């Protein structure tokens, strides 16, 4: 369980705007929880890059369509 509560409207908004693109949706929701749980950590570049590397591999451009 994440230690921080996220405003449900943010999660809904991400889901709505991701369309059917589950990879993007999952990627962003993970990032949001990561930010909320570890606000202000200095090694964020590494985390973001790792997540982009991981998720983009499973992603095909146009997935959302």
């Amino acid at each position, binding site marked *: 369980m994440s230690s921080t509560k996220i405003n449900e409207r*943010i999660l809904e908004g991400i889901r*709505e705007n991701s369309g059917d693109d589950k990879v993007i949706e999952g990627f962003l929701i993970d990032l949001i929880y990561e930010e909320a749980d570890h606000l202000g950590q200095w090694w964020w570049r590494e985390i973001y890059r790792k997540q982009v590397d991981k998720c983009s591999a499973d992603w095909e451009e146009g997935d959302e369509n």
Partner: protein
Amino acid sequence: MRIEKIILTNYRQFRQVEVTFPRKPDTDLHFVIGTNGTGKTNILNAINWCLYGDEPHLSKDSQRLPLMNLKTIDKTGIGKDGDVSVEVWAEAEQGAHITFKRQALFRKNDDGQMMHQGTKFEVMTNDERGNTNIVTDEDASAWVERFVPMRIREFFFFDGERLDNYFKEATGQNIRHAVFQVSQIDLLENCVERKLQDTLDDLTKEAGKANPKIEEARTKLEQVQGRLDEIRKRVEECERQIEIARNKVAEYGEKLKGVPDIESLEKEKQQLEADFRETKGLLREKKDEKESLLLESGNILMLWPAIRMATQLIEDKRRKREIPPPVDKGFLEGVLRNETCSVCGRSLDDSSSKRVQELLREVELSSETAHRLIQMENPLSQFRDRVEEFEERIRSITGEIVKLDKVLTGISLRKNQIDSQMAGYDEERIREWYHERMKFEEIRDKNQQQLGGLQVMRRDVEDDFDEAQKELDSELRKEKKAKGLTKKVAFCARALGVVKSTREAMMKETREGIERETRKQFSKLVWKKATFGDVQIKPDYSISLIHSMGYECLGSVSAGERELLALSFTLALHQASGFDSPILIDTPVARISDVNRENVAKVLCEVSTTKQTVLLFTPDEYSKEISGFMDGRASGRYSLKLSRDETEAKVEVL
């Protein structure tokens, strides 16, 4: 979540105190009443200390005192340990219980000082199955973040005075900041969005290393982005300045409503005084002119009856054909000398001679008179012209004198009006308000002018940005070597687009929601319902309170009304936050008038049906308007009493 109870041990005035907050089925309203110094505000501090480790509402007196209760310090022996602890017992969803406990450890040294040995913070959770779990450090803090996040606690646990100052201090930017924090839009904007943008930039730079054309397109995009950021900043600054200036203009406008424009009146008065002096000078000149004219024309005027009579006489003589005389004098003299009529040649007899002599006498007299009268005619005519001219001039001068007299009377009347308009006002202060208003009007206008130019510039640069972005995308697609990177860039760009769309939609939705809720709460709260027409939260997050007559009136409302608006706004923020946490207000109605107090009481009672509400009152505040309404509705009522030696406070259930 709600607070079930708090346990204070050796914390400031409280040696061992437990306050429970039981919920009634239909309400969750609690109040604590205590005179100043009994530790009322320290209950607020205790909760803050337990959850966040600080005491933001500490009074100057308390700042000088140690954290540990004075009686406990006194009773602790040298070299012995003692502790201060505060526990906040919270009830979460689905019957789970959470206990937040902060404990500070002390040891008394040889000088009798309590030396701090360390602080522990732990959170104990009990789930619905009865499993207990204790966490410390970051995990414990994470539970606090789920209860009331530190960054937004000031909207949940606060001093009522803050409500009064809220709109005095808050600009649109501050309110925007509060809204973004509470609704977590800042998490999207300042964390995820910004960092994704940086990641995207890093990836694009990497791709640029593989191909100079990509690098060129990327550099171009970066430059345009830089320009765009700069313009956006300037636009924001302009908007901020306009908003501040607009609020100030409205504030001074309100202050000056019904107040005479002292400066204009003074200018007018000065002008009137100058006009008065000038008119008086003109009047004097005209009077002098009249006097000179009278002096100059005095002789003629005195002779005027004689002149008029003489003129009439001459006219009369002419009419009777006596002027010029009908018979020549020389002719008659010749007849007498020759004793023969020069016309018929007859000799004159006695009677004829007598008749000629009579005629001669008559003609002689008439001839002299006629001669004199004819000689007089011209000068008499000149005199008459002069008299006519005099009459015309004297009439004109007299008319002007009357006119100038009227002007002077008018000026005096207006001066008196101005004096009575200005009487009773602090001229210096009013003048200062007018100057300030004018200054802010200039700032507003100057910035509005600048903003127009900047907005045009921003649109142009945004177009350049879109074009540069397309160029970069096109170059990235062409580069096969960087296929992996291109995919990551596209993925990042897509994710960034989703975050941006979500943020923009949330910003709009949140602002509108807060506006709706603030309006609804305020209309319930405020006493003068017909006075206020609307509450608006503008796109720049400046708050407008619109009078029913249509003008902005936030700057001029009473402290109580301002507090009611801030309370409405705070309740709206609670709703937007998605946190179902309690509200605790110290001295909630200290600045609110009696009638509005009743309204506040009503609203807080209503709030307490869905949200735990804890209010800390002074006895003065807990007036009949409050107690009459709240007593029957409260779930819990407590009174704080200080011991005789003032070292310990006790809580009594009322």
